């Protein structure tokens, strides 16, 4: 329901309206984003942006963990295939 896009914080300043603002890059395209809801955010962080507001900081360690899990699933599949292949071989040998 809510379009959120990750981008990198390039700079932080106080906007004309008194709100903390940041320049955020989305693949090179830059937009001014309100940072009021992420008081601890720092330059270089990746944040999730919805309707011009950063609503969450992206945790690189958690991202890593998800990525690792996704890769493991592949390794697991390979392992299973190998296991099956070995079982086949054993069956063949038994014949």
């Amino acid at each position, binding site marked *: 329901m809510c379009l959120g896009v990750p981008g990198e914080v390039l700079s932080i300043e106080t906007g004309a309206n008194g709100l903390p603002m940041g320049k955020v890059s989305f693949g090179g395209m830059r*937009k001014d984003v309100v940072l009021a809801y992420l008081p601890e955010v720092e330059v270089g962080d990746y944040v999730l942006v919805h*309707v011009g507001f950063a609503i969450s900081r992206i945790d690189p360690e958690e991202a890593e963990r998800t990525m690792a899990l996704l890769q493991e699933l592949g390794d697991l599949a390979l392992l299973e295939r190998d296991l099956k292949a070995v079982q086949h071989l054993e069956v063949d040998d038994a014949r």
Partner: protein
Amino acid sequence: MTSSADLTTAAVGPAESTALDGDLPCPIPLDRYPRVLMAHGGGGRLTQQLIQEMLVPRFSNPHLAELHDGAVLAVEGNRLAMSTDSFVVSPLFFPGGDIGELAVNGTVNDLAMCGARPRYLSLGFILEEGLPMETLWQVVRSVERAAQRARVSVVTGDTKVIERSRQDGLYLNTTGIGFVPDGVEIAPRRAQPGDTVLISGAIAVHGTAVMSVREGLEFETTLASDTAPLADLVGALLSAVGSRVHVLRDPTRGGVAAALNEIAGSVGLGIELDEAAVPVWPDVLGACEILGLDPLYVANEGKFLALVAADAADAAVSLMREDPLGREAAVIGHVVDEHPGRVVLHSRVGGRRMLDLLSGEQLPRIC
């Protein structure tokens, strides 16, 4: 009545006129669409509905039936291509171009998509009272430069002024005429199963550049519109690959998705598109993501789609890549017998889905 077999005169007057002409009800459901909406000009389904249900049946003739970017007319042994287009872009000046340049390139490119060498252009201005004279001058200068670059002459024109309604109102219409060289035959009906679909470069650049300066959407980018005259590149392609080029189309409003749907729809063949092969720049993708747009539906200028015989695809791509306007040319799909009239996309991650027309222009969304 004119005989519809006589191609040179068939384009005049309604074909199936009846005594009851005056009583014909409007074919658009008036309870749903009592008034014209912006979406009727967005290049999506509502535009299609207007063309297919209101316009084409009234003026039916073989030229119109081609539903091509322009018409190719046989005139005393020559083949003449004719095309018209109106320009209402806002703002008038945007990164990489302006309405004047667009008005020349847009029509010149529609002629090129018929395989024609563009020659003559008409120029119609509709101006709002109050428009700064300097703005008009800038646009005129820009038309001049673009016409020079595209080697077309502006041979007739018109100027009208309407009462002020919004700021900076300036609209342009151009009609172009060009000649189709012998042996060249470009038309949707020439599409064949097995044809390869090519794109001449990265997509969605123009639409994104214009959006970056629209009120309310502004973002910072180095993107500039890619508007450019394509006739030379098309000419080179045609002389190298010749009759194995079957269809050409510039994916302007409605983007690649609309253009491919129109082709598939008009010939009753299917098109398979490989998303991973479609060139999109990262900053274009970034802009599209943040606004919730799909680059496949975003307008292009200075790019074209070509359907070529499969055995000519490699030659066509390498030839296009030698030209600065075609440096990122790529094979992005092919024509199939299956799912006639529809475009199926193979997503980057391996899934399949229909790539359909939207109802109107794609709007920025929040969800």
